[in-house]
């Protein structure tokens, strides 16, 4: 990641170092009775690749369109590079957008599409030609510059749209579901390409996506959005490993979530009693003894062992295999706990199963366990 801040790779932690490139303050957008974006605050720093992640209708696209200048705000303010955007029309903003539909001009060639933005700024002709050439080289489309959008594949069109948005060297590039129209294999490949290009050009990206894997792969930081509000803002690791709410824990990846009551709250550990076992956590949490709490466990952080005998003690439970889903690279085990809860447990298939091998199979008696650092405590 290219970050201009000398202090390192996390400008959002460095409060006094740098002014945020984008400041969103108390922004609200209503469509009639429906509140699409509800009093949202966000700072985004130079060089970030920031993802807005959420389901459809969560307000992420509306927020992006407000940044681009296509939607008016009902209240609040958006500042880009120190300039309040309130009365700046879309055609004068230092942002460029890559549309979900790509919105390529069908009557213009690739070259003309990419040059369009530069022509608006009255860049000298020879300069336009150079810059168009360079950007098409970056997205590996030099050979296609004379083609019309209809003569390109989906992946090529996506790269034209990216080139067209990047060629003006915007301060901020807005990408609305940039990979949604590609098929799965191409999408995965393009995720990395997109991140590489961002690194090369050093432009700040804000990406809207509904695909959590995409957000995790791409972003330096991301915001999980629901019902017009941010549920959590943080790095992908923070959001995955330290979710703040059941919504985030469940939305990002999958999680087995169950209720418990705090029995011990130490500086370096927490104990929670649940219906089927005691959960011991080897780090402190700001919780109250006796309060109700939720515990979340990631399926890949749970171990399964074959055991006929019942187990007791913290962080382990006896269970029965209820169902198995073979996905190739991993298998999902649905295990039934004594109280009837079903947990998802995933295991990588590191060896090829053979008949001789003892395998875990349906109706097997097992015990499940997890590390004392694995369980996540959620207040809401």
């Amino acid at each position: 990641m290219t970050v201009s801040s000398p202090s390192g790779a996390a400008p959002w932690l460095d409060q006094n170092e740098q002014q945020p490139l984008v400041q969103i303050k108390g922004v609200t957008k209503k469509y009639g009775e429906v509140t699409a974006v509800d009093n949202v605050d966000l700072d985004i720093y130079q060089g970030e690749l920031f993802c807005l992640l959420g389901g459809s209708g969560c307000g992420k696209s509306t927020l992006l369109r407000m940044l681009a200048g296509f939607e008016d705000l009902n209240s609040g303010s958006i500042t880009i590079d120190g300039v309040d955007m309130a009365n700046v029309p879309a055609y004068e903003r230092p942002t460029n957008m890559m549309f979900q539909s790509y919105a390529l001009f069908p009557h213009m060639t690739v070259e003309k599409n990419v040059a369009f933005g530069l022509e608006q700024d009255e860049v000298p002709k020879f300069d336009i030609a150079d810059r168009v050439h360079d950007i098409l080289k970056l997205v590996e489309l030099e050979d296609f510059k004379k083609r019309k959008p209809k003569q390109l594949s989906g992946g090529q069109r996506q790269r034209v749209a990216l080139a067209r948005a990047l060629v003006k060297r915007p301060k901020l590039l807005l990408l609305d579901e940039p990979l949604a129209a590609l098929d799965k294999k191409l999408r995965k490949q393009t995720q990395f390409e997109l991140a590489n290009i961002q690194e090369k050009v050093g432009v700040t990206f804000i990406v809207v996506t509904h695909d959590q894997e995409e957000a995790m792969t791409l972003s330096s930081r991301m915001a999980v959005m629901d019902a017009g509000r941010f549920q959590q803002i943080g790095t992908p690791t923070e959001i995955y490993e330290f979710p703040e709410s059941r919504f985030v824990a469940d939305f990002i990846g999958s999680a087995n979530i169950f209720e418990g009551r705090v029995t011990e709250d130490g500086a370096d550990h927490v104990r929670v009693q649940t219906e089927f076992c005691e959960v011991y956590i080897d780090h402190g949490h700001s919780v109250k003894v006796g309060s109700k709490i939720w515990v979340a466990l990631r399926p890949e952080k749970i171990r399964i062992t074959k055991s006929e005998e019942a187990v007791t003690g913290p962080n382990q439970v006896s269970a029965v295999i209820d169902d198995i889903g073979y996905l190739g690279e991993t298998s999902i085990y649905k295990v039934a706990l004594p109280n009837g809860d079903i947990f998802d447990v995933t295991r990588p298939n590191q060896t090829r199963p053979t008949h001789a091998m003892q395998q875990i199979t349906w109706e097997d008696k097992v015990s499940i366990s997890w590390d004392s650092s694995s369980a996540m405590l959620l207040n809401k």
Partner: protein
Amino acid sequence: MTDVSNKPPSVSQGSFGSQMMRRIQSHWRQIITVIPFFWLLFFFLAPFFIVAKISLAELAIASPPFTKLVEWTDSGIVTIRLVFDNFVYIWEDSLYFDTYVNSLKISVTSTILCLLFGYPIAYAIVRSGPVAKPLLLFAIILPFWTSFLLRVYSWMGLLADQGTINNLLIALGIIDEPIRMLYTEFAVYIGIVYTYMPFMILPLYATMEKLDNSLNEAAADLGSRPTNTFFRITLPLTMPGIIAGSLLVFIPATGEYVIPDLLGGGNVQMIGRVLFNEFSRNSDWPVAAAVAIVLLFILVLPIMVFQYFQGKASEER
């Protein structure tokens, strides 16, 4: 005998009807393409050749009033007489040339006027809300519910010296004497633009409706002001609609007879009126047919241009 009895009953019966159905099903594609061919053959090509034949004949006192193109003499010799006099006559008499030019001037001007008024109307309809849109479209088509002739007569009532508009302006004290509007070229323009406006608006609407608004947003996002976006994005992308609408106005307007006759009186010469006069008053079928043939060729040219652009546009799409 055993062979026959082994066959399933449906096959052994093999009724004529079901065989026919199967044959139709296997050839339905050819059958469907043949229909427009026959339509054009009977209702365009055949009448065209009949008119072309008459245009190459001479006026004669007969019924129908022209000489025969092909004649069998008693001695069994077939003679074919082609007379180009009618075309020479049309070329040499400046009345016809001037009238063609005047017709084209009026139809081209009317087409431009229809486009200038129709384009913003179509654009407004496309941008209107989900309730207003069908109502506005209905309002565009609504005039077709009343007779065309009746609507032209209404304009006579509005534009006459003692008509509604003049009376109103005099009553308001804006003018002292009636303005002469009926039986002028102005009235003909009003009639043509009014009558053919829906033919301009509907194809324009159809192409604009398909335009993706994100293209406008993309242009704005890339720094283009609204007027520039209109000329660089909207206008080129609505060109198929402009061409289709213009032809739908231009072609019938050139040959228009009723509007110049009723609203223009004797003061506005258009080729449709000349054609009608030759045919009915002078009973000169050959000259009338020649006038029609020349008109057809004048109109075929823009159609071919249109086809060319259509072909090019569909290539790009």
